[in-house]
């Protein structure tokens, strides 16, 4: 079976910095793949390239067998790739519910003219996406905040809201950039369970995360980056034992194994 996502000899150079160096890997449909590596390893840069926010300097990204090269971020989203942001990017002045309703943007159709004249179907579609959004807010456990302005949410709930919004578009591939950073232990556990649940529902997940407990427990595959290059790739058990990884990254975090 062909992989859902294929990264081929990908490079990203910023002036002076090679953020991603000749990177190749594949992601199988329905799996959770984690990407780890020290700060500055190029994890966010990789997410930005897959989601169309950055243009690769070289190399190819194939989604479902088709190249994503040249597509803008919103076009990549149309193909079924959703993401969250390491530093939260919410629609701060809008309510939690509206944020998730915006996540439904690609799953709804009504345009300017039909909305302007309230043509038949507009109100029904609004009600539909409202219902869907409310149930997603419930799924991630922030239903009590539905009518609060997103900017006023505590950080943990903001992170969960980003996930709910990304899920609202019913993506085939979900890119999560450090979803547990800033969460307390209980919240982290909740987030881990939710991400695992996504895998079981058939959503393919790429997870960038520093919390080794989560990474080790929920990933099918782990990819280790260092200075933009892949230094290891494999199931959690083998990554844990990889001497290169221990030296470069895990270091004194061996206690997690």
């Amino acid at each position, binding site marked *: 079976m062909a992989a859902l996502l294929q990264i081929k000899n990908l490079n990203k150079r910023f002036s002076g910095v090679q953020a991603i160096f000749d990177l190749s890997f594949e992601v199988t449909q329905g799996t959770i793949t984690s990407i780890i590596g020290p700060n500055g390893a190029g994890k966010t840069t990789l997410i930005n390239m897959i989601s169309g926010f950055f243009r690769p300097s070289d190399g190819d990204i194939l989604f479902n067998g088709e190249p994503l090269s040249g597509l803008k971020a919103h076009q990549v989203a149309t193909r079924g790739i959703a993401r969250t942001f390491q530093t939260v990017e919410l*629609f701060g*002045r809008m309510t939690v519910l509206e944020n998730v309703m915006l996540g439904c943007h690609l799953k709804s159709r009504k345009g*300017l003219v039909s909305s302007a004249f309230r043509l038949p179907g507009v109100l029904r579609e609004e009600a539909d996406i409202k219902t869907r959004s409310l149930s997603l807010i419930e799924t991630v456990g922030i239903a009590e905040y539905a009518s609060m302005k997103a900017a006023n949410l505590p950080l943990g709930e903001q992170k969960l809201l980003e996930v709910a919004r990304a899920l609202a578009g019913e993506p085939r591939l979900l890119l999560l950039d450090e979803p547990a950073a800033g969460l307390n232990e209980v919240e982290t556990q909740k987030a881990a369970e939710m991400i695992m649940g996504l895998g079981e529902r058939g959503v393919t997940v790429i997870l960038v995360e520093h919390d080794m407990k989560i990474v080790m427990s929920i990933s099918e595959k782990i990819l280790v980056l260092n200075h933009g290059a892949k230094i290891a790739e494999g199931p959690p058990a083998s990554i844990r034992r990889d001497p290169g990884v221990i030296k470069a990254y895990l270091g004194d975090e061996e206690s997690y194994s």
Partner: protein
Amino acid sequence: MTMPLPEKNQTVTHIFLFALFVAVLPWVFGLSRATSYYTDVMVFVAIHSIIAAGLSLLLGYAGQISLGQAAFYGVGAYASGILTTRLGLSPWVGIMAGMALAAGLAYGVGLPALRLKGHYLAMATLGFGMIVYIVFNEFIGLTGGPSGFGEIPPIHFFGMEISSTLGFYYLVWTFALVVLWISLNIVHSRPGRALRAIHDSEKAAAGVGIDITRAKVQIFVVSGVFGALAGSLYAHFVTFINPPPFDIFFSIKVLMMVVIGGIGSIWGAYLGAALLTFLPEWLAFLEDFDVLAYGIILLAIVMFSPDGLVGLGSRVMGRIRNIKY
């Protein structure tokens, strides 16, 4: 800046109550000789409200500034004027043609400017406004040049000729109320939500699949179409047009209407249009000092209430409620 969304049927109720108010107003004005000419002023309030509603959508919901709304106003006025006087076409054809031409021009100006991040639209529309103004002045064969042209025919509505001020008042306010309804519908639905999202975070908006350029261009086209509609109505009401009403100062005046009324509120645009249309009438007794007083009043509003009259109103209402309890 964004108001909590009222329930949909509440919006219609508000518009209906506003329509009733507008409908009886000329009869109230008619009670006194001193106020009877206010019906005339209110025709201009409606015309200004229509053009301000378009800019309010663009500024308050897409976060983009246009300094060229007067050009669309002029395009509507000249399209109506030229097609009805030179070709003898129906005013309705003139109105439609003006709106179509404005839509095309807005698309042509907006697409390259709105592709770029930042406030390039302000510059592009400033240039566009100047070019259109030059065309009105220099293409004398078509536009009559600086002296303009007259004898623009009145609008016929179901066989009735709308030539009295009162008749035109009801016609133009019908348009203004429909524009209000359309604008509020846009704000309270998927495309309006997408625009507000862009205003908050372009990154996140692109992430959920919103085509930012397209959304901005679309709403700029709407603002151009509303501007042209207002211009056509102006031409058929005044029956004479020349370039000055369509200059950069009018563009700035429309911008002030939106800001004074309250950025991010369509109702605010109507309030701002009313204030900036009545204020010069009320200040006329000051003769040479009217511009000074006008400036001071506007400055005071912006300084004491950055969210405009709508923000001021809701704060006052809040105070009153607090007193009651």
